[in-house]
Each structure stands twice: as C-alpha cells, then as structure tokens.
C-alpha cells in the first residue's frame, strides 16, 4: 500500500492520502480498522470499487474523491465520511453511528437496516432507501425510489424531493417526512399530522444535513399500526 502524508488543512493534524489506483480496498480497510481516533484520510481514484471503508469503528474523518460501489461505509460505527461522487447499492448499510455524506446520488437500499447515525445524500436515491431501518436518520436532497422505508422499524427518513411507489410499506415506528409528492403509500402507511415536535426534529435533521428547506413544507407519514397483529381480514395486505 502506498500512503503519503500530506499537510492537513490545519496545523494540528495530518492527512493520510490513499490512491486506490495503487492500493487495494483490503489494504485501505485494514488501515482504517487499525488507525487511531482523530485521524484524517483522503481516498482518491475509488473507481466505483465495492466495500470501500466498511466496518470503520474509529472516530476519524474520511473524504473520498470519486464514485464508490456497493456497501460503501457498510456497518459504519464512528466518524465522519464524505463521498464527493455517487454511491452504489447498500450505501452505509446497517450504519450504527457517525455520519456518512454522499454529494451525488445513491443507488438502491441506501442506509438499509441502519441502526443509528446519519446518512445524507445530496442527490437522489434508488429504490428501497431506508429499507428495514432500525434507528438511522436519513436525509435525501432529491427523490427516492419505490419501496423505500419498507418495514422501517425506527429512525427518521427526510426526503426533500419526491417519493416513489409504496412508500413505508408495512412500516413500524419509523417517521417519514416528504417535501414533494408521494407516488403511493404502502400497506399500513398513512399521512399523519405535523405537530410542533415534528417540525422541531425536522428542522434539526435538515440543519445537520446542511439544508435550508422549510420544515413547514413537509408532510409526515408513519404507521397506522393496523398490521401489528395478524388478522384474517387483513389477508390482502399480507
């Protein structure tokens, strides 16, 4: 692996630069797993490779210049990660904590099953954004695809654009905020009142994502809780 140390933007830290045209993803990940808290990293030439920066459990800062493939920042636990580009399937899947920010678009299953932390996508996402989310907060600047927040259990999904078909199908206790249109709601997902506490948490999430959208322009969606117990009359929804 070729690691070069470049001067940091401040005088108090150093940045480790890794070029994935030279180093392997395996080398990068093992270095990230072994590093100390407080380190800073820049990765160039990701070239859409899969599994970059997975399993980070150090409080570090990482910037990737270019597009990344599947499972970027999968199971992310600590630190702040930014991609100046777009991300493939399963961005930050099962994220536990920390922040993952993609300046471009993300493919399907973004932040799938995320248990905590914050995932920000400035552009659009594909289908199944926030599928089975379990506590993660997701802010999408653009649109999200169909079957997003399917079986979403906990956490907040904020969509500044439009949502595709079947939003929040079989949702449990997650909360969804959409500024634009919703093509259709999935089974047991309904629009709910936007009360002051929701406006407050929405404002906080938008601010964390660096956005200036007006919370009052969003609508809130969540579970009608009619499918929480099996009942023969609900067979069509099962």
């Amino acid at each position: 692996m070729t690691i070069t140390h470049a001067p940091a933007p401040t005088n108090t830290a150093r940045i480790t630069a890794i070029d994935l045209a030279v180093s392997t993803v395996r080398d990068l990940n093992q270095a990230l797993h072994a590093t100390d808290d407080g380190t800073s990293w820049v990765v160039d030439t990701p070239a859409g490779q899969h599994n970059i920066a997975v399993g980070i459990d150090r409080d570090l800062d990482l910037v990737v210049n270019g597009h990344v493939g599947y499972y970027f920042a999968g199971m992310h636990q600590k630190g702040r990660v930014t991609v100046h580009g777009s991300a493939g399937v399963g961005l930050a899947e099962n994220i536990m904590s920390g922040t993952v920010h993609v300046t471009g678009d993300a493919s399907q299953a973004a932040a799938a099953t995320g248990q905590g932390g914050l995932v920000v996508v400035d552009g659009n996402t594909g289908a199944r954004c926030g599928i089975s989310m379990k506590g993660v907060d997701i802010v999408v600047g653009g649109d999200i695809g169909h079957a997003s927040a399917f079986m979403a259990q906990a956490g907040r999904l904020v969509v500044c654009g439009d949502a595709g078909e079947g939003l929040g199908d079989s949702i449990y206790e997650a909360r969804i905020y959409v500024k634009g249109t919703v093509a259709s709601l999935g089974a047991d997902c309904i629009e709910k009142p936007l009360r002051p506490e929701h406006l407050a948490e929405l404002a906080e999430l938008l601010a964390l994502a660096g956005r200036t959208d007006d919370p009052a322009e969003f609508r809130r969606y969540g579970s009608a809780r009619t499918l929480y117990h099996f009942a023969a009359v609900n067979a069509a929804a099962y």
Partner: protein
Amino acid sequence: MTNSYASRGLRESATFDRATINDIQRAATTGIYDIRGWGAKRALPHFDDLLFLGASVSRYPLEGYREKCGTDVTLGGRHALKPITLDIPITIAGMSFGALSANAKEALGRGATEAGTSTTTGDGGMTPEERGQSRHLVYQYLPSRYGMNPDDLRKADAIEIVLGQGAKPGGGGMLLGQKITERVAGMRTLPVGIDQRSACRHPDWTGPDDLAIKIAELREITDWHTPIYVKVGASRPYYDTALAVKSGADVVVLDGMQGGTAATQQVFIENVGIPILAAIGPAVAALQELGVHRTVQLIVSGGIRNGADVAKAIALGADAVSIGTAALIALGDNDPRYQAEYEALGSSAGFYDDFQDGKDPAGISTQDPELAARLDPIAGGKRIANYLRVLTLEAQTIARACGKSHLHHLEPEDLVALTVEAAAMAGVPLAGTSWIPGR
C-alpha cells in the same frame, strides 16, 4: 383405537383423515391458517431408508473399543484466516433468542462447548449468555438483521448468511406477540407485543452476483479472519450450492424440509422444499464438479436424530451435520413428565408443536419467566453434551464396522437403500442389487 373402529366396520378416509377433518373445521371456525413450530411431520423418504454394508470378507472392520475413529472437522479453510476446528461433526443449528428462552440458548451453548462443537445464534441477535457459554459461536446474518451489529460480527467464530431454512425455503420468519417481551423487542427494535414478521429476502442484495459482494463486505469488516457459511433451505440444492461456492462461501449449510421452525404456516412446512435425503447428493455433486468437495464444507440438517443419521449424512458426502429439533428434545421438549400441562394446552407429549404460543411447559420455546426458569441451563447443557456424545459414539460404531478410521472416510459405497425412492434420491443402490434408479 383404530382396530376397534375397524372391528365395528368403520372405515377412516385416507384422504380425509381425522387430522385433515380437524384442519378443515379449524379453518372454517377461525378464518386463518394454522401456524406452528417443529418441521415437516408427514412421512418422508429419510435416512431410515438407508442401511450400511458392514465389513466382511472384502472389507475388514476396526476394533470397536481399541482402534481410533476420528471425528474432528475443520470448517472455513477455503478463504478464512481463522477456520474453526470442531471435535465432532455435529453442530447446533441456528435458533433465535426470542423463539427460545435465554436459558435454553445458554444450555445449547454450554452443551456444545462441553462436546467440542459449535452453536449458532438466530433471528434475534447474539445474547451475552450465549456468547459467554459458547466456545465456537456461529453468528447468523439474516434478512431481518435484528440486533445486527459489527461488534457481535467480530465476536463470532463464524458467520452464517441465511438465505432460507428447510422448514420454509422462500419464507421469512415470524414471532407472535406472546413472545415479544421487552427484552426480545429491544433486541429487535420492535414494539413490545406485536406479531413480528421477518423479511424473506435480504434488504441490500439479490442474486449470486450481489451475494459475492456481500460476502466480500463481511470479510473486509472482519479482516478476512472469520469463516463465512451460506445456509439454504433444500429446494434446488445443486444450483444453490454451486452459486454459494461461486459467491465465495467457505461452507454451505443445507437444511432439509424436516428441519424445524419456531413458527411457520403448516401449509408451508408440509408442502415446500425437499427431504434432506434427496438434497445431499445434488449438493455434493455440485461441490465435486467445482472441485471443492471437502474444501468447501457441507453441513446438512433436517431430521438428524441418532448416530446412524450422522453417519449416513457423512457417507453421502456431508462434512458435518446440524441438529435443532433433536437438541430441543434432548433439553426436555415433549417430555412426558409435562403430560398434564400439554393436555391443558390441547396437545400431548410427543405431539406438542405450538412453539409460537410461548407456553412451552418445558421452558424452552417461551419467554415467560416462570416457564423459562424450569430449564436449568447447566443441567440442560449436560443433557446436550450427553446427547452429542451418544450421537458421536453411535456414528463411530458404524464407521468402525465399515472399516473407517475417521467418520469422513465413510462413502456412498458403504450404503444401500431399502426403497426404490430412497435409492433414487440418495444415489445408492437398492439393497441386494447394483441398481441406482435414474443412472
């Protein structure tokens, strides 16, 4: 009972027998299908339909109490830096905390550890009790990802990506509200008391090409240390095994339709999937054609009850077996001493399969604190260890009789079938002939 009816000239329908009549009447009364635990209960071609050819003139046997018959197995050496070696080729199958009590999970871990083998988590995450008492713990990576976290992933001795199980290939799990206590709900991030549905597909990948990337991700997160299994329910074992190998699995776990479940629709249990007897041959053929038989290990499950079943599965080409239902029985499931309580639940010892209800008198498939306290995890662990030892001794007895100094030396040539069906499914000759139907 049946004879007394016959003597009165009463004839029961084979098509509409009493259980079927009850099913129809129950459906008409309730308007919802039957959900139960256990695995397939219908009669199926099974290991009972195979026999071993003991040594005689053309083979010589090993001395029963003198000559060694090895039982160890190493799993995961294909790609993992830290494969696991078990003393015996009999593992404990994945069963969730939630479906089972914490005491039951701990007992399984204790027993497996004492016997030198592995136990497996389930669809509900890893409990400290189980990790603490399990020397070799396999962590299941399931579609629901309940309780999934990278810390537990790194604590695991192996990771089992579950695509399906024999009781319900193509189906997701369910756990009814009676068992969703505060602790279970907390581990699964669900409201207490709801009827929980687990997904049947993984949320972030579909198909073998994606699976290869998913396996690579898990390897990257665990720094390539941990063996990765892929578990499938037996339905298309040749293709599923080949695709698991292509995707990079270290181990393939193949679960036949007799494999147990905590809660599944009866119609699913009894009508989807194939018996393990019919599944081993195609899986082994796929491994052999790819040149990885014994390099990628095959673990089979679904109806393993005794050492003969273990020996037969290994002779057909498996590297190890897994037990679930039998382990629960060893712990005390369906014990006649609870007969009065089974009766009160509308069942009977030997028939009890309402694992979904959480009222198990034996304290195994329950989250009720009073019922769960009936199972002492230390005593339960001893029972599991005893049972595993018996399975091993029985398998060794058969292997020595066939002249084998290691269980893995057993081979299809040691077997014959009692029925045409079993001969065709297992790919061994009908007893007394050289005929393998279809070849």
